[in-house]
């Protein structure tokens, strides 16, 4: 297998990693004001993702950086074409990221409410906009023979791109709801289940429509591919399991559904990386947009050494914070004399995340 194909696969893995991991914290961020009705409940919701959201977000940076280094041609065309959209994503990322840290540092209700909205809006906008961008790769953008984008901002709003964005957003919301159910107890958990059921039904419909649209866009046959079939099955599983106590399996299913959706976009693309709606001869491919062999070789070495390390410590951080977040935990620490709970108080066996 050639190095540029390996790097295409690595980049797909990065995008999948980003959406599977950051997907649940987008979902939690978007839902935290609705799942948590009191201030403590909202903080519980935010604390379910507190230790991880920033680590998860690094997958986006890695995906972008790997794209830049391995496929400079692809990066240049894609990031220039999506320029204004990415500025919007960046602003949303800035406000959202800061909201985690700033929200709890003021007591004022308006201060907290403001940052809650920043978190909610950011968590909705980012997967939606990135989804539109990824959908556009496949839907095709006006690109000329020099691989320059020749359209304007409104050319980015392709029908299929928008559908992809909505699909990813709904999948992230479902993923967040199953994650909340997995990580909390009591009423918040019940509400997480409730949201998962409602969003799940919407997600099934949206996902089926998106799969059909994908088949139309790539053309050449109407038989759904395995990733598409398993993706739809995973959404159904997540929705059904949300009515049971199998929180771990529901979460795994919603994660699989996201992985399948992202994987599907890139499987449909390969060996192209960006479709030109001007002329298919101008498509960007893994061949014509990749770095030199030496650069790819050096990158492969670096990835082989550091990827396992990163996965190891990220996995470890998930292990450390594996217990459910309860409002009680905070109260226990504020008033340690009232009760002396054992290590497992207020927690249940949780499936590994």
């Amino acid at each position, binding site marked *: 297998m050639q190095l540029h194909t390996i790097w295409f696969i690595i980049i797909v893995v990065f995008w999948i990693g980003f959406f599977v991991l950051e997907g649940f914290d987008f979902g939690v961020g978007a839902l935290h004001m609705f799942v948590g009705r009191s201030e403590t409940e909202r903080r519980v919701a935010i604390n379910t993702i507190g230790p991880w959201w920033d680590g998860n977000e690094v997958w986006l940076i890695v995906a972008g950086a790997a794209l830049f280094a391995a496929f400079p041609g692809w990066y240049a065309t894609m990031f220039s074409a999506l320029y204004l959209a990415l500025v919007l994503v960046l*602003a949303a990322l800035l406000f959202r990221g800061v909201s985690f840290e700033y929200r709890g540092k003021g007591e004022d209700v308006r201060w907290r409410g403001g940052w809650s909205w920043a978190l909610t809006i950011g968590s909705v906008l980012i997967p939606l906009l990135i989804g539109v961008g990824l959908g556009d790769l496949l839907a095709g953008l006006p690109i000329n023979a020099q691989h320059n984008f020749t359209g304007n901002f409104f050319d980015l709003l392709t029908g299929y791109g928008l559908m992809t964005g909505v699909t990813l957003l709904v999948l992230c919301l479902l993923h967040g709801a199953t994650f909340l159910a997995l990580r909390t107890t009591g009423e918040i958990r019940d509400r997480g289940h409730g949201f998962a059921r409602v969003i799940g039904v919407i997600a099934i419909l949206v996902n089926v429509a998106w799969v059909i649209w994908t088949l139309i866009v790539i053309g050449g046959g109407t038989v759904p591919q395995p990733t598409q079939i398993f993706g739809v099955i995973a959404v159904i599983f997540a929705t059904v399991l949300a009515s049971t106590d199998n929180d771990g399996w529901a979460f795994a299913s919603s994660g699989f559904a996201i992985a399948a959706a992202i994987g599907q976009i890139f499987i449909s693309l390969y060996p192209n990386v960006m479709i030109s709606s001007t002329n298919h001869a101008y498509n960007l491919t893994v061949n014509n947009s990749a770095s030199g062999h030496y650069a790819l070789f050096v990158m492969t070495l670096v990835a082989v050494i550091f990827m396992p390390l990163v996965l190891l410590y990220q996995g470890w951080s998930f292990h450390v914070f594996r217990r459910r977040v309860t409002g009680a*935990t905070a109260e226990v620490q504020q008033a340690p004399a009232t009760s*002396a709970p054992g290590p497992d108080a207020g927690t249940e066996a949780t499936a590994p995340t």
Partner: protein
Amino acid sequence: MQHPVGYKLNKVGQPVLSNVWALFVNPTFVWGYAHVILASLITGCLVMLAVSAWYLRKQQHVESFHRTAKVALIVLIPTIVIQLSVGNQLGVVETHYQPMKIAAAEAQWNSCKPCSFSLLQVGGGANDKTPSQIIEIPHLLSVLATGTWSGPVTGLNQLQAQYQAKYGPGNYVPDVFIQYWSMRVMAYLATLVLLLALWGGWLLYRGKLRSSRVFLCLSVWAVITPFLMNTAGWLLTESGRQPWIVQGLQKTVNANSPSVSATDIWISLIALVLVYIVLGAADAVLMLRYSRHGLAQADAEAAEPSAAPGAPAPALTY
């Protein structure tokens, strides 16, 4: 971008990585990296010193803040001495690879040997190439730029002629005003900070740190200097690279993406400035609030018995 290395040009003239090791031993990288890391340390020390001095002046939490002021000063004194010599060495490296940058920083229009360092001058921009020197120090520029007592420094006019011969017609002189003054803001403030730190060290040695009101007052205000120095330093190095975006390979004017219009750039620039104003304001409010919060809260937290060993997930942190 200041001194590209480890690449070959391919058939269509694009630089392609050919030697990754060269990147890690690029002198501009090595010295620039050390310079930035030391600048961060100095920034941290000065912020720590300022907050400590503020409390010492108000005579609150004196023991704790005397200790933090001591740590800040003990780290600051050697760091700023090292920083001055690292910055000097970076200047020598840049004189070698980017002579325009340093010549412009000294508003040195004509070659000289030995060269005096202009401590203060009036004029010297592109429209006034014979600045009126108010104070200058003989030989100092030679020492700073070349590391030798009487080393030659090529002037902007001579460099411009060399560059035109090599790269074709065009203006290769960076903005002399920005270069000259950013260099001086950075270097003069660094010298003042060094004096302040030495003064603090002396007070510490004499055991008078907590009672010297003038020093404590100056230390509080010194908190703005690292931010001014860092900004001036970045201006110096980035503006000094102009008109190149990648020295010798690509000009800034040719570096924009053909599909990103000037309107797009304006929109993104304004959007990011607004975002940073909002976030910066919130940040400033929080930093001031927490700096003035005192140690009461921290004391309370420390006094509180920590959760039992093997306790469940930490309390609501966010």
